[in-house]
């Protein structure tokens, strides 16, 4: 229950609803502006740090010219026009450059999963004319079977029901899963370890069995809630490309890798045109990572020289993704700083406005203050009363400010294509804004610190 002095403040607040409402709106706008601007600024900084510290932007990507120019060129045409086909042996370039920490191949790939939905689709499939060639789609390896029904028949010799009852086989609800064929140093470069099972052994990279390591989130989709991901180790996933034996589940990386799978990369050792087509279709990219991003320019130049000497002028493209990332980082930082300055200006204007209105509101309470002091209120009691009034306005305004900041922040995050989005930062920024506004209310709150009751009551 409110004590009598607080009833005075509360009832004055309600009686002067328009003025109180304007104060609350001022607080809401100030808090909303800084909560949105501040959150964006912090998120941009965090994202920038994450981007620039990401292994992706501490490496040089080496690819063939055709791949860099266009993904649309048919593989066979590429083969006719192109001599350069990158292979695992090209990673030897790293041995010449000491500042390269890791070198690996990372080719994107997909698995077409077989599940009950797939079986239903396959049953309704009308077989096309025979075509034994593999094809490339969007630069990713998709091994096409003769037709799904044949491939399915081959895999499901004992029928689908027997698969459902086989505990060693895992069915994915997904139709298709993306992943990467990687060489061993990929995991070292990204410092990713296995949470269950193991990473690929050196033997795994040479054998023909289909082995996979799963990202943590993808693994979770294959188990029940009460199961551990380690239960997946040794089981086989049923895919159109054949059974894929799960050898490991990665620890969480907070990247898209958590939703993907990895299989061991190896060059096709057979010779001839088909081997070259396969390697071309894989769009092999070599990646050379360094521990210090300052070395990237030098390493890039050295790799360019090495690959030019190996494959000829212009055949191989050496790119440094960090250059583009740094431009994006700089742009986002500039925008976020500008918005932060605008938000701080808005908050400052709001705070001054609030302080001014509260001061005039407090001055109108001068006689009340005198009477309260005559009746026994100390200056501390009076300050507390005005503090409560200011806090009441600030708290309501801050809640509204947060409600304003959330959609604004979402829009700005989306405009800057940020992946980091922490709503708790909005609350922290809003709290900081509220504290700043409260600091501006100290002048009106302490307006009567040195006044005597007789002087306060003298105003009629």
């Amino acid at each position, binding site marked *: *229950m409110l004590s009598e002095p607080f009833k005075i403040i509360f009832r004055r607040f309600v009686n002067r609803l328009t003025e109180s409402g304007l104060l609350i709106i001022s607080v809401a706008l100030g808090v909303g502006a800084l909560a949105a601007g501040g959150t964006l600024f912090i998120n941009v900084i965090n994202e920038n740090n994450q981007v620039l510290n990401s292994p992706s932007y501490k490496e040089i990507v080496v690819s063939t010219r055709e791949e860099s120019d266009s993904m649309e060129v048919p593989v066979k045409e590429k083969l006719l026009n192109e001599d350069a086909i990158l292979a695992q042996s090209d990673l030897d370039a790293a041995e010449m450059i000491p500042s390269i920490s890791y070198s690996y191949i990372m080719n994107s790939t997909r698995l077409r999963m077989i599940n009950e939905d797939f079986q239903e689709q396959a049953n309704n499939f009308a077989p096309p004319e025979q075509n034994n060639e593999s094809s490339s789609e969007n630069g990713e390896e998709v091994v096409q079977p003769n037709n799904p029904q044949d491939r399915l028949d081959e895999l499901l010799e004992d029928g689908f029901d027997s698969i459902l009852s086989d505990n060693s086989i895992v069915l994915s609800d997904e139709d298709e899963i993306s992943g990467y064929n990687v060489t061993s140093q990929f995991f070292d470069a990204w410092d990713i370890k296995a949470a269950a099972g193991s990473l690929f052994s050196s033997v795994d990279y040479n054998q023909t069995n289909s082995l996979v390591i799963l990202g943590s989130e993808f693994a979770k989709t294959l188990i029940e809630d009460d199961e551990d991901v380690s239960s997946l180790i040794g089981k086989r996933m049923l895919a159109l490309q054949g059974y894929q034996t799960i050898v490991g589940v990665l620890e969480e990386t907070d990247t898209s890798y958590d939703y993907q799978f990895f299989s061991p990369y190896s060059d096709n050792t057979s010779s001839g045109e088909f081997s070259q087509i396969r390697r071309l279709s894989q769009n092999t990219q070599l990646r050379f990572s360094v521990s210090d991003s300052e070395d990237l320019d030098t390493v890039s130049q050295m790799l360019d020289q090495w690959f030019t000497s190996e494959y000829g002028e212009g055949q191989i493209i050496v790119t440094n993704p960090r250059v583009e990332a740094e431009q994006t980082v700089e742009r986002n930082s500039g925008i976020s700083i500008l918005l932060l300055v605008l938000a701080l200006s808005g908050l400052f204007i709001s705070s001054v406005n609030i302080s001014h209105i509260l001061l005039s509101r407090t001055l109108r309470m001068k006689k009340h203050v005198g009477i309260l002091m005559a009746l026994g209120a100390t200056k501390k009691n009076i300050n507390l009363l005005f503090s409560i009034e200011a806090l009441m306005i600030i708290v309501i305004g801050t809640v509204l400010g947060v409600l304003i900041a959330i959609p604004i922040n979402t829009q700005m995050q989306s405009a800057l294509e940020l992946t980091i989005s922490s709503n708790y930062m909005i609350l922290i920024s809003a709290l900081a804004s509220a504290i700043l506004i409260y600091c501006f209310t100290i002048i009106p709150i302490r307006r009567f610190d040195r006044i005597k009751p007789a002087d306060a009551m003298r105003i009629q």
Partner: protein
Amino acid sequence: MINLENISKVYDLDETKVTALDKVSIHIDRGEYIAIMGPSGSGKSTLMHILGILDTASSGVYKLEGYDITTLADKEQARIRNKHFGFIFQSFNLFPELSALENVMLPMQYASVAVKKRRDRAAFLLDEVGLSHRMNHLPTMMSGGEQQRVAIARALSNEPDLILADEPTGNLPTDKGDEVMQILEKVNKTGVTIVMVTHNPNQGKRANRIINVRDGKIVENPKDVGAIYAK
């Protein structure tokens, strides 16, 4: 009970010094009923404010029950005002946001009296001043006489030793003023000291003692006082 020794009050107004009280010495005993009289601007309200520790003297000593309270800290001054003094003002000075009951309860809140106890005492006091039927009314809904009676009830809420009334009937018609005076006299009979500022000679006559203030000084000649306000 109260001893003022050579109390002076000087205001600095635009580089001009105005002496409101000039070496005033007064002794007030417990249970007295004193009227402070004098023309406008003579310093009687300033004297009243200093007596009620609503203002501080520029020089001199203020002793309450033998203790020098001239330079007490704000917290102690507030405690004395709350526990020992009750104030009644010409313009009532009730809080328009609070009901009569809440206005009377307010000083007890600063004395840390529990809600129920202060509600019961406020109701009792309002009943004493004949306003039991107006407890939940706001001051704006009450007549001047009723408001002043609420103010008296508020002044009595913490059972004060001294009631300081600054022209308590100044804003009231004669009959309502008489009612207020009767209540004050009744309160005085219970042992509460009353110091009242008034312009009204008839009200002055009803006091046990008159302190006549002119130009910031106490008029020393009792004959003059007697001649003007002879009982």
